[in-house]
């Protein structure tokens, strides 16, 4: 078999695999994608219109009504609208989703998550909180939701390498979704909390730590 015969044999495979999805279904999904892309611009306009009376943090695109952002720490001026750095949303089933636009306002994020019942330390200084002690899971348990037992944390649309303060990078996909963490407080092992931090230039990190007043603001139960 020479190269031409090989290429012919390979090209004969064309048409042997058939895409069965109807074009109407593709277009329907395309409309959803397009509408989702337009949503941030629309929400931005709404926020701009309301900026005299309200700060911006709660007028986030795609935010659940229960979503909160660091509004108080980001009062928007009349000529510049700044979307909240992050949004915390309580989901059905008790999970808490943190969507990130920017790694900013760690103290406000920490307060918000603690108020939602997550024992957590949040720092975006490039170093870990020295008061936090790593928590080792018993055998058979998982931190991330991939192992034999679902873990308390999952990451959406990010490889945990986005750098402060710009979240745009190759790992954040699809482009119309924000990178996010989904935390399941009820899945946290007893005595364990979370440390969310940046480490050098490696972007955001999350690890399990022992709860303590100095680290997670609460004592172990």
């Amino acid at each position: 078999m020479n190269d031409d015969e090989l290429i012919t044999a390979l090209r004969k495979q064309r048409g042997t695999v058939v895409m069965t999805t109807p074009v109407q279904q593709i277009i329907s999904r395309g409309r959803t994608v397009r509408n989702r892309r337009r949503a941030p611009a629309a929400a931005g306009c709404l926020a701009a219109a309301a900026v005299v009376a309200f700060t911006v943090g709660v007028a986030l695109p795609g935010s659940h009504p229960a979503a909160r952002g660091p509004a108080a720490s980001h009062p928007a001026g009349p000529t510049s609208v700044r979307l909240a750095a992050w949004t915390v949303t309580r989901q059905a089933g008790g999970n808490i989703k943190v969507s990130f636009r920017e790694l900013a306002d760690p103290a406000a994020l920490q307060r918000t998550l603690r108020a939602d019942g997550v024992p957590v330390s949040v720092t975006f200084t490039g170093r870990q909180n020295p008061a936090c002690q790593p928590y080792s899971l018993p055998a058979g348990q998982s931190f991330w939701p991939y192992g034999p037992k679902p873990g308390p944390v999952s990451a959406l649309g990010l490889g945990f390498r986005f750098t402060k303060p710009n979240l745009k990078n190759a790992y954040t996909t699809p482009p119309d979704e924000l990178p996010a963490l989904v935390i399941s407080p009820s899945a946290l092992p007893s005595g364990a909390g979370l440390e969310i931090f940046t480490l050098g230039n490696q972007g955001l990190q999350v690890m399990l730590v022992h709860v303590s007043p100095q680290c997670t603001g609460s004592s172990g139960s």
Partner: protein
Amino acid sequence: MRPPSLDFAEFYREVKDDCLLAVVVSTGERDTAQDLVAEAFARAWASWPSVSRHPAPAAWVVRTALNAGVSRWRRRRREVAVPDLALIADRPAGGEAAGGCVDPGIMAALLRLPERQRQVVALRLFLDLDTERTARVLGIAPGTVQAHLGRAMASLRGELIPACQEENQA
């Protein structure tokens, strides 16, 4: 270059199967590939005014599908299994998702190639992209494309010739 007025439905009808084959070969996962290609076409529709002016819209779709596959893999990397050649290459012809008859020997040989070589073969031979355009789509140098294609062809010859000889002897 395609005309700006290219109709999406027509474009979809023309290239959907080649795009799917390219992604199947590139990813080694047939059902996943169908989802990825459908999502890529949906994104193409959402950005059709610009995608239709792309010098190679089909390559745009394949690249988008492959990117989506990488993203999906990153999200689920701990649960991704090695592609099962038997499930892909030996699927009965005319299956619902397949709709055609894949040569299991050729497909298995393709899937044994390294990923980058598979991508080059898919773009060069199934989408008819030239070396320059293949290089741009994959983000590698044209010389690298040629090297990958050369190695892929050599490997495929080595795999397929014995198979042909066995068939001829039988």
